[in-house]
């Protein structure tokens, strides 16, 4: 059984990491957690992101949650903010898609276009196929 003392070991191991995270290259991954987001599955998305960040050993990443993003029908929503780049908004996320975003976008720098939000003439199209028609 885990005891609270194990935190002491984590402390020793992570001291450097915390310092590294303070520099400017930090990427933020933000998950919307309003009622609609939670009901649509935002919590497993958030946990999947944390697990993938940990699995890949990414230290220059901050995972955060926020309240309402204001796009109920598009939830769960994940925003990726890389320093010096425009914010990318991913919609209708699930745990698997979220893992892919961490691998391909956050780690390797390639935006996963098929999951991003598409705004055409002021209207949000949540379906990628619609845009191509």
């Amino acid at each position, binding site marked *: 059984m885990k005891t609270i003392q*194990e935190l002491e070991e984590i402390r020793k191991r992570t001291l450097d990491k915390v310092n590294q995270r303070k520099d400017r290259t930090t990427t933020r991954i933000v998950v919307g957690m309003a009622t609609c987001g939670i009901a649509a599955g935002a*919590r497993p998305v*958030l946990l999947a992101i944390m697990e993938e960040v*940990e699995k890949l050993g990414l230290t220059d990443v901050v*995972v955060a949650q926020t309240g*309402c993003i204001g796009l109920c029908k598009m939830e769960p929503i994940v925003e990726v903010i890389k320093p010096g780049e425009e914010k990318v908004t991913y919609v209708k996320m699930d745990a698997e898609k979220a893992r892919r975003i961490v691998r391909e976008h956050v780690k390797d720098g390639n935006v996963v276009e098929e999951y991003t939000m598409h705004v055409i003439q002021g209207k949000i199209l949540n379906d990628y196929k619609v845009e191509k028609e």
Partner: protein
Amino acid sequence: MRELSLHIMDIIENSISADATLIELFIEENTLKNTFTIKIKDNGKGIDEEMLKNITDPFVTSRTTRRVGLGLSLFESTCLRCNGSLKVYSKVNVGTEVVATMEHENIDRPPLGKIEETVVTVLLNPSIDLVYEHIYNDKKFVLDSREIKRILGSDEINTPEVLLWIKDFIKENLKEISGGAF
């Protein structure tokens, strides 16, 4: 919501939006008295009297992106279905307490679900402290983020490594106090 822990997530989200810095989550399960009690208390900005009167009315919301508030009315209907109730106490500039009760063995009662995921999601906010106390009959588990911050010697406990550890820590302890019921 499919799990009580998702309702809890949603109620705590209200506390976070109300700028709370300390959130207390108290869960008590008593299988002998057939009661399931959830209390969520915060030190946020509170709700004024006028709004508090109809707070579980879905048309009461201070949000601007949609005209219907959902969280409290959704949770209340779950409690009512389980022969319980939902009460909201609040004082402006002091804080808010939400008390939900249900019958433990009610067939309509959603499972608690992954409460450990709700807790670590809240702890992603480094400026918010959370005390989580869970009583199952005569056994008790308490987690206090302030203690974790003290042991780690840092307020930045919002790293995946620490949070995933906390998640497993909670899971194991809940299994222990409930005799494997979770």
